[in-house]
């Protein structure tokens, strides 16, 4: 499974305008609805499920990254959004530091294996210092696409 198949260009946002967690997630869900990854009418429910997961334990895992996610019945095909917040967003992270890179993953409720596979690929990349730094410093969609392509190629 490739990251580029999950994060389509329309849902890659190198300059989020939101300044808090909920607004950032909403901005990213709007982008996903805008490119047809989900129905606009499902946004409130999916947002609620992502926030519910955050309430169980922040997905802000430290070092400026967060991986909010949900398996939701309204999602047909696994899809995600990448948002960069240059000024940082409070995500109640483990290390108390703001989040600069948000990787949102939405999976169909029925497909546990694909969800596990993709989460592991994302984590393996986010644990690499180089990937994390390049992602955070990206200022264009093209830069992030190139980074994803390199990650998919195992570089």
């Amino acid at each position: 499974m490739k990251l580029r198949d999950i994060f389509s260009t329309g849902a890659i946002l190198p300059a989020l305008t939101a300044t808090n967690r909920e607004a950032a997630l909403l901005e990213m869900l709007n982008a996903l609805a805008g490119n047809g990854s989900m129905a606009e009418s499902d946004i409130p429910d999916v947002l609620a499920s992502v926030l519910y997961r955050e309430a169980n334990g922040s997905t802000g895992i430290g070092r400026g990254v967060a991986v909010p996610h949900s398996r939701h019945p309204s999602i047909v095909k696994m899809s995600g959004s990448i948002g960069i917040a240059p000024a940082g967003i409070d995500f109640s992270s483990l290390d108390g530091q703001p989040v600069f890179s948000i990787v949102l993953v939405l999976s169909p409720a029925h497909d546990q294996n694909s969800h596990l596979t993709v989460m592991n690929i994302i984590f393996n990349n986010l644990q690499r210092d180089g990937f994390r730094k390049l992602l955070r410093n990206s200022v264009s969609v093209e830069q992030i696409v190139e980074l994803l392509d390199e990650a998919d190629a195992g570089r």
Partner: protein
Amino acid sequence: MPVATRKIVIVNQDGLHARPVMQLSDLANQFESNIIIKKGGDDPFDADGKSVMQLMILAATEGTELLVEADGVDAEQAVEKIAELVAGKFGSAT
């Protein structure tokens, strides 16, 4: 290589929060075996037992069932010690 698995249940009130996660990854890092902590259900994740970041994402609250899988020369010992740490509520009163 020997493989060992063990089902565990989180019994401390705070769940796998910051301090327990540090303790768990410190313990896992003492073993040579690869250690994976698996969570199923609605929010599944396979976490590397030696990675604080990956253990945090489990969001294993009180009552969560997890599967510990170790693979390596000291696999049996690893699952035993991890099960002990979790059952002993990470050495705290709650």
